[in-house]
């Protein structure tokens, strides 16, 4: 089935690079969407349809074009459609900051890891795709971000950073591998102290590097979102954690030594409890409503949603200021808890963005203000049709 979305009449959004957009999507064997082709505009796309129609599946397909596990954090094998071969593929014609590209990703039947191709050649996605595509999303799962455990907020922050910092994802995965290595050695029958020394030296260096990147990003994002005005509330952001406190008044190399010493001293405790007693895996992203001084976790549901949208829009504004790639923005049911002025303000901000934004809802009526700027796609049980 082919669905050609009606392109917006406005001038092409790519008069303001750098940004990216999926202009054609070809799905094969992916979730309930199975085999679909869509031609898309570079501007906003509104997906509407009943619950279970496949709206989030389509957003997930877009999110899979970037490195990582996508917006559901699903295993690749879980994304294959029922009754298929077990494999799936997504092929996209992209408009990137330096012109058109094709990005393809998919899972071969019987394999565990998906592959990426850029312009027809196999690539290491984490190294070659940042700068060409980035995807940021807000889903109903993030509605509780401020009440969730700190790990969710760290993941949220790390995702924002990784969209325009190719080295960051590699740094965090290296750190996690070292943590697992250390835990395995600690749990072995005769932990080798020299081996642990070596692992902890590497852990300490990576820990400080991660904390430094996060601190720089949170400070620059805080400057943007703290100064925000209009319907979306101003937010103050900070990182909290023992490591961050050490870095506030000591040189990085001193902190590396202090972290290594702490890890060495806590081996017994860490062996019993698992994990490590100090490191960026114990830090937290703290958000405060700047207007009331209230911690985000204690704000109302609607206020939390407004704070979250403000942070995401602030990050996109920050990326634009920094000249970084403006990512594709996926907003799944994002208008659900927003009042009318904020919903309108969100639409205004989206139509002013140089990149592509996807919005979903069960009905098209709340998106009526976008009717002249966005393409509307109706989903019904995985079938796609133009908006009539």
């Amino acid at each position, binding site marked *: 089935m082919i669905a050609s979305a009606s392109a917006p009449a406005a001038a092409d959004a790519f008069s303001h690079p750098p940004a990216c957009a999926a202009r054609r999507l070809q799905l094969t064997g992916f979730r309930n969407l199975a085999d679909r082709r869509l031609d898309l505009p570079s501007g906003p796309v509104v997906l509407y349809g009943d619950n279970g129609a496949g709206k989030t599946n389509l957003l997930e397909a877009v999110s899979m074009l970037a490195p990582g596990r996508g917006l559901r954090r699903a295993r690749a094998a879980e994304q294959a459609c029922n009754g298929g071969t077990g494999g799936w593929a997504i092929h996209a014609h992209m408009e990137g900051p330096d012109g058109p590209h094709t990005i393809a990703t998919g899972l071969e039947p019987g394999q565990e890891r998906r592959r990426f191709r850029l312009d027809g050649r196999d690539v290491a996605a984490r190294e070659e795709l940042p700068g060409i595509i980035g995807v940021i999303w807000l889903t109903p799962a993030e509605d509780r971000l401020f009440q969730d455990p700190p790990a969710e907020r760290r993941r949220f922050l790390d995702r924002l950073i990784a969209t325009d910092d*190719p*080295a960051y994802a*590699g*740094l965090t995965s*290296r750190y996690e*591998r*070292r943590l*697992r*290595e*250390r835990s*395995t*050695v600690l749990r*072995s029958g005769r932990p*080798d102290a*020299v*081996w642990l*020394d*070596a*692992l902890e*030296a*590497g852990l300490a*260096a*990576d820990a400080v*590097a991660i904390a*430094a*990147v996060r601190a720089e990003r949170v400070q620059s994002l805080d400057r943007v979102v703290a100064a925000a005005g209009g319907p979306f509330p101003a937010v103050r952001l900070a990182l909290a954690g023992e490591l961050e406190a050490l870095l506030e008044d000591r040189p990085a190399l001193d902190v590396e030594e202090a972290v290594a010493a702490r890890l060495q001293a806590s081996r017994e405790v860490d062996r019993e409890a698992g994990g490590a007693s100090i490191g960026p895996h114990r830090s937290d992203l703290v958000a405060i409503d700047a207007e009331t001084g209230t911690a985000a976790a204690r704000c109302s549901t609607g206020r939390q949603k407004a704070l979250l949208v403000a942070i995401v829009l602030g990050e996109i504004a920050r990326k634009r200021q920094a000249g970084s790639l403006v990512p594709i923005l996926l907003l799944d049911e994002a208008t659900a808890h927003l009042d009318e002025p904020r919903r309108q303000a969100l639409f205004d901000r989206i139509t002013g963005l140089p990149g592509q934004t996807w919005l979903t809802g069960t009905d098209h009526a709340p998106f009526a203000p976008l009717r002249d700027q966005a393409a509307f796609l109706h989903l019904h049980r995985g079938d796609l049709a133009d908006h009539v």
Partner: protein
Amino acid sequence: MIRTLETCRAQVRRCSLCGNLDATDPCAICSDGSRDGASLCVVEEVEDLWAVERAGFFRGRYHVLGGRLSALDGIGPDELRIGEMLARVQAEGVQEVVLGLGATVEGQTTAHYLAERLQGLGVAVTGFGRGVPVGGELNFLDEGTLAAAYRARRPFA
């Protein structure tokens, strides 16, 4: 063709000194009296030895560990030829051990481990420099590489 391969396979053996693969034991490198016995380059695998040898800059001897430390893969110090390396350092009058290990998590952990085990043996322990590649520009380097280059800085002659 198959017969040739079978002949090669029958003739290739592992050098009992360094772990290299060759038709003789000790291998041609260990038997070469003109090599500098004071320098020992430690590598993970035989292909790493060949890579360094192809580059032609190193005239010392080698020691192949047979892998690198990886707890997740079940490879600990006892699975590598570390004891043999320590014995060679003490028996062969080695003055410098060059750690030619990969810049991976496991490679760097192994290098750190070996450096600590070599402490007190009276040898200089060095590693390949890491940082700005030849022809590279700073603004294209990731933080980890840049930090490694900074740590490896030296006086500008």
